[in-house]
């Protein structure tokens, strides 16, 4: 392989050649030269000044004005064993990326670098905590059981309560552990809602999340499984008619789910709705699409039987 220096020089050389080419063209016809980076007429060249994406709006909050936020942050930081900075920075954030609002307190190091942060929702509940340093691989990795107990202790110290049996997964990114308590309501899973602790392999806590969506009232009359299966069968017949693809139902369960725009672009950019009780139906395509679609999940509202969203594994 070429050295980094020599190969790094290649692209600027090509760029310089492009300027010469541009000059030659401009001196002749005064027509703008095409960049050699363009590879086809259909490609999307984007003027960065015109690219608009989601934004975060924030306002600074201080310990003087919001002592309770900073006190909660200190408590969580110490409960999880996070580093203490030389100063704290607080802000109230409207997060346009994830459509959420939270108070955030960062521990900042002597060079201005973020060491850790904690976030709290409008009612003061911890939603996320994270430390940003990186751990060296330890000589000995703690066991999953030890990770679970450490996670439990940290949560208790921070004031978070968890119910039920934790699940523990090995983390591929750093060899640590993911300990999570998945939320249930009325005995049914709330899709994605959880209390999750990520621990490094040496047993220190790196991140904590508590995700808890608001639930709509359960429907007075719950759609039966056969009726839900009929709804899905009709939906799949409709899809098969359009796409020539066949689907088979793999499994279905009742869960609380967030309605979404997975199958309906007209619902994009709508405000997040309360989670609803739904039949969550996993279907698998057969034929050509099975080559690259592993799973499609439909949410069928357990009250009115409409498809309110779903998910795709590409």
């Amino acid at each position, binding site marked *: 392989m070429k050295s980094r220096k020599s190969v790094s020089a290649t692209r600027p050389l090509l760029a310089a050649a492009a300027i010469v080419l541009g000059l030659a063209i401009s001196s002749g016809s005064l027509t703008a030269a095409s960049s050699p980076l363009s590879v086809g007429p259909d490609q999307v060249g984007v003027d960065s000044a015109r690219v608009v994406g989601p934004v975060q709006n924030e306002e600074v909050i201080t310990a003087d004005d919001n002592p309770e936020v900073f006190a909660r942050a200190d408590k969580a930081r110490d409960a999880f064993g996070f580093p203490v900075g030389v100063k704290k920075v607080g802000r109230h954030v409207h997060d346009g990326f994830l459509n959420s609002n939270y108070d955030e307190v960062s521990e900042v190091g002597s060079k201005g670098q973020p060491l850790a942060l904690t976030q709290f929702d409008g009612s003061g509940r911890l939603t996320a905590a994270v430390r940003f340093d990186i751990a060296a691989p330890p000589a000995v990795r703690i066991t999953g059981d030890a990770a679970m107990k450490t996670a439990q202790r940290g949560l208790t110290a921070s004031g978070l309560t968890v119910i039920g049996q934790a699940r523990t997964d090995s983390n591929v*990114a750093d060899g640590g552990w993911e300990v999570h308590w998945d939320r249930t309501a009325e005995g049914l899973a709330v899709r994605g809602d959880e209390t999750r602790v990520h621990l490094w392999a040496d047993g220190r806590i790196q991140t904590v*999340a508590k995700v808890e969506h608001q639930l709509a009232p359960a429907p007075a009359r719950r759609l039966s499984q056969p009726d839900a299966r009929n709804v899905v069968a009709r939906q799949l017949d409709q899809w098969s008619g359009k796409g020539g693809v066949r689907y088979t139902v793999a499994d279905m369960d009742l869960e609380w789910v967030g309605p979404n725009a*997975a199958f309906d*672009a007209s619902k994009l950019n709508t405000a997040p709705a309360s989670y609803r009780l739904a039949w969550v139906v996993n279907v698998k395509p057969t034929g050509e699409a099975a080559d690259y679609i592993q*799973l499609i999940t439909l949410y069928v509202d357990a009250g009115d039987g409409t498809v309110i969203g779903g998910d795709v*594994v*590409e």
Partner: protein
Amino acid sequence: MKRAATWLVSILLAVSTLGATAQGAFAYTGHVWSNSDAFKSTCLGFNDTYPQSMYSLAQSQLALLGYLPSGALGASFTRSAFLNSVFYDYAVYAHTHGDNYWAASGSPNVDSGILQDPGVGMCNSSSRDMIRSSSIKAATMGTPYNLVVMSTCKLGASNSTMPGAFQIEKTKSSTQRKFYLGYAYTTYDSSAYRFERAFWSYLNGDPNHSRTVYQAFTYAQSIGGYASPDSANPFQANWWGNPNYNGTPG
């Protein structure tokens, strides 16, 4: 007088053209590719909305990071377009189907791949649409890359050969300006989209590249709430590269 005015206009146009050319040529290009036709009604019976959402998000956020975004949503995401442009790129983002396939030499050697967009009205075929990591590596001719995001299944797994295609070693202690992000297991689109929104929001949340890509990764990991298809496929993102790299192009 008219002759002088003509000269002035000509000079201004030439300078303007040179400026535009130089800007394009010296910009740090980041290609964003998203396969949409394979996930449209003609193949699935419905139009999957994630390819567009992922594409738009990556385009806007790479631009904020300082890259000149280019690329394609849909039919122009072809193998030849990808391979012809990748040499010039400093950042690459792809949202499509990806997996770790056996290499031509057979098991246990892996040659990871992604699928190009099949074209309007077409569905993907692995045999026809595959862009192998070995092909990408050949097209890059050893050039370095700053930021590579494979928004696909499995290309963040330990046996993925995709990082190597971009000269990114599978270590977490590089000192060069490089960072690779991928997902380890079979991954729901909603979870990848949630992760990427959090990732970009943190990375671009403070001006002047004051945050590192690793911090953005860690932040996105921290928020939780990621659905997974089953217990054998928990949602897990992975990274390799330089933990202190702040995403600055070049």
